[in-house]
């Protein structure tokens, strides 16, 4: 590498691979891909130290389109593969790309354990509430009553809540974004800045099998009144500052209050504290409809990472020990056979 290339800051174009992108025209995945490619230069990432690991599903084609190292693994197992990558080389910047079926159905177990162990990585869950690649069956995040090829009369099971699942699993960073929203790169930057497993749920529109499923808060008319972008140390306001979230002390839950003339304080509106786990729990449990959709960094409170603990222990117990293979194979109680015995 010459000096010019090391000094030059990368551009989004540098992060595009030579592969033809094969998602359906109009798929939300294109927007997420662009957002990630726009984010990479800004966080100072280098392509050779970046690894994208994915499972199976539409979103999991993602690594092929990034000019980085990439591993398109098997259904649900990206967190496990990524754990091996990171433990083998903690210097690598690991991104996991997954979907609602991949991360919460077939791979739910791995998602849980990745989060509780707190592997330092970015975990981007593209939630489109449907199985796209297998042609439209309902998914673990589909709402009750979803009609699909496998549920022609409507689904009857209760959907999983990805962010609540993540918090319950012990995640130390939980955020939400929207595929086409301009804030997505900021959410990704915050996820990357977080040391530890950074869980990001991205609402992603499947134009073929579940089009407009998020319209109630993403449509142009709904966005300003139904989206609440939380920010650390800022009051949790929405609907152009006319409404806010306050604590209902009696039920220990959140309530929506009206804010008159910008005086959010006297309306009792809570100030977001991204290190407050209780607030995070309240935000992810908020039923949409009666409440707005909470977006942005809901929770960010770093803790020691898994791979650093593993490396520290490996180093500590190896201290002062010499890796002498001959000594190792001769360990334990040994005895000497002196002379050649008679043959039998």
């Amino acid at each position, binding site marked *: 590498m010459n000096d010019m290339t090391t000094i030059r800051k990368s551009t989004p174009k540098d992060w595009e691979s030579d592969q033809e992108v094969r998602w359906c025209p109009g798929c939300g995945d294109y927007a997420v891909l662009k957002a990630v490619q726009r984010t990479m230069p800004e966080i100072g990432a280098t392509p050779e130290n970046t690894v994208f690991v994915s499972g199976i599903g539409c979103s999991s084609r993602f690594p092929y389109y990034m000019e980085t190292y990439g591993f398109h693994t*098997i259904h649900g197992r990206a967190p496990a593969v990524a754990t*091996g990558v990171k433990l083998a080389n903690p210097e690598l910047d690991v991104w996991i790309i997954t979907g609602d079926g991949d991360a919460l159905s077939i791979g739910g177990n*791995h998602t849980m354990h990745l989060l509780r162990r707190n592997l330092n990585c970015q975990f981007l869950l593209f939630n489109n509430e449907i199985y796209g690649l297998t042609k439209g069956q309902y998914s673990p995040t589909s709402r009750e009553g979803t009609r699909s090829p496998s549920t022609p009369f409507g689904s009857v099971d209760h959907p999983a809540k990805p962010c609540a699942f993540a918090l319950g699993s012990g995640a130390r960073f939980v955020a939400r974004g929207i595929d086409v929203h301009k804030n997505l790169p900021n959410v990704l930057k915050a996820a990357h800045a977080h040391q530890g497993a950074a869980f990001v749920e991205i609402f992603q529109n499947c134009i073929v099998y579940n089009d407009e499923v998020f319209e109630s808060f993403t449509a142009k008319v709904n966005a300003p009144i139904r989206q609440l972008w939380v920010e650390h140390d800022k009051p949790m306001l929405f609907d152009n500052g006319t409404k806010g979230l306050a604590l209902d002390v009696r039920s220990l839950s959140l309530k929506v209050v009206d804010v008159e003339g910008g005086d959010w304080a006297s309306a009792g509106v809570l100030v977001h504290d991204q290190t407050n786990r209780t607030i995070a729990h309240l935000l992810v449990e908020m039923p949409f409809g009666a409440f707005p959709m909470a977006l942005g960094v809901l929770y960010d409170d770093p803790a020691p990472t898994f791979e650093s603990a593993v490396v520290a222990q490996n180093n500590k117990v190896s201290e002062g020990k010499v*890796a002498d*293979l001959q000594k190792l194979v001769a360990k334990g109680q040994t005895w000497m056979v002196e002379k050649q015995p008679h043959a*039998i």
Partner: protein
Amino acid sequence: MATAAHLLPPEEASANPPPEAVVVRFAGDSGDGMQLTGGQFTLSTALAGNDLATFPDFPAEIRAPQGTLFGVSAFQINFGSSQIETAGDAPDVLIAMNPAALKTNVEALKTGGLIIADEGEFTARNLDKAKYAANPLDDDSLAKWKLLRLNISQLTLDAVKPFGLGNKEALRCKNMWTLGLALWMFDRDRAPIVKWLNAKFAKAPVLAEANIAALNAGHAYGETAELGGQVGRLHLPAAPAEPGLYRTVTGAESISLGLVAGTQLAGLRMFFGGYPITPASAILHHLSGLKEYGVTTFQAEDEIAAIASAIGASYAGSLGVTSSSGPGIALKTEAIGLAIMTELPLVIVNSQRGGPSTGLPTKTEQSDLYQAVYGRNGDAPMPVIAARSPADAFDCAIEAVRIATQYMTPVMLLTDGYIANAAEPWKVPDMSTRVPFTVKFHSEPPAEGEKFMPYARDEKLARPWVKPGTPGLLHRIGGIEKATGSGNIDYSPANHQRMTDIRRDKVLGIDVPDQAVELGAAGGKLVVVGWGSTYGPIHQAVRRARARGVDVSHVHLRHIWPMPKNLGTLLKSYDAILVPEMNTGQLKTVLRDQYLVDAVPLNKVSGQPFRIAEIEAAIAKFFDGIAGNEGGELPADAKQLPSTQAVNP
């Protein structure tokens, strides 16, 4: 052959030569510390220079209800002055710590063998639990054996009295009392056990002292005249062995050591992803203590994560290793396919156990050969290696690492519950003589204007291994079919045909050493072909038959897939082929398929290893049609072979 010569009165004994080998079985409640007793007896036996083989046989339940038949834990050791390759057929001595242990083990004892029973435990309650209507020590139901009844419980309590232990704690020393007696019987040194007890109970010296007192008391009991003429001392001379430094090793230990040695010879770090499962967990335990050798161990959330993390580690430039037993291997199967498709090195150790499903977790079987060779979706070729013994597992593990890293492929190493748990003496290898097979990661960026080809091939058809983090070699891999060379997604018909052929040819082209004949010669009337832990009984059975002049040879496969290039010719040089396996005939099927030979199966799936006599009998049946050979005592010049189908009636 082992005899009960040591049980004969002195005048008779002197007329007989000392036995070559003696088989002792310790049996008791799973809480009685039988595995511990057996393990220590093994150590002292090895230190006395006897060759030995052991067979631990314990229940799947951790603490089965006390005194019950299914809670019996046993440990058998065969030791002696000739080469020992099996844990022995029928025991010469049975040490029964309670009625249940007697009931479940006594039928295995040789006629005329010695029973040492702890009569203190033959209470009405325990007899009832063992479903004895009457006390067998008192009636003549044990008449065909010699019986030595000792109140081991009381003798132990007396011995440890000075230490002021509670009754329960005091009785825990019973196994050491018994061990002391056994050490006396076979003229074994107590010093290593005393040393071990002091180390084990370093934090509770009173327990160390009590156990040592029990050990000494058992030994002293033998020395005094109290035993009468029933038990004599027996000293087995040291077994012949090549000069050098020896230690005992279990299969789980030697596989772990072999994997460490292999990764060091390859110049790599090891990443071991495992999930607890019997009987494979011992490898995870062992490796987790060897971090200074560049080993990272990871106890994953499940079997799938265990292998997936190992694949991720291999992708990142470590050697990924995972280990399990049949049901766990089944869970890993999809990921094995991924490793085959992405052509990453990986070692998968399968400690086979009785199946299907949960099957017999603590019992041995070799019924995962089909799973290893064939058990995947798609045409998914993978090399398979099988260890024959605890000591052999060391070299097999190194061989697995060599093939995985040189050919960029997952490799399955088959072992079984018997090999994993059994101990045998092992001549400590001289590591300085091992030839390194250092891995060379690809790090050269392509020439200007050219693209890196992650699926380019070397002369072995292996693709380059690139560590993420290397500038100029960015690439993507995955489970989708990829174009030859570029590795880009490619579903085209001709490409899939070509890639399938390459994956097959790469594995078939692995340089596997030519198959040797273990015993006998190439060509002849009968060859007994084995693999894995049936080595011992096959070898002994063939040796005995040959000693009687029978034209039979022993061939034992290490490389199950691909098979040695000369194997077909070798097998066809015999008139008949017998394949004993602890399954319903899996290697037999592969041999028939590969070489169109009439391989005759001999099968056993009882969860117990073959006895030498069983294989001897099967060999004899091949010669049954020959007049005067009813007993299988074939004259060396016998001309014809009878129907081979008679072996498995």
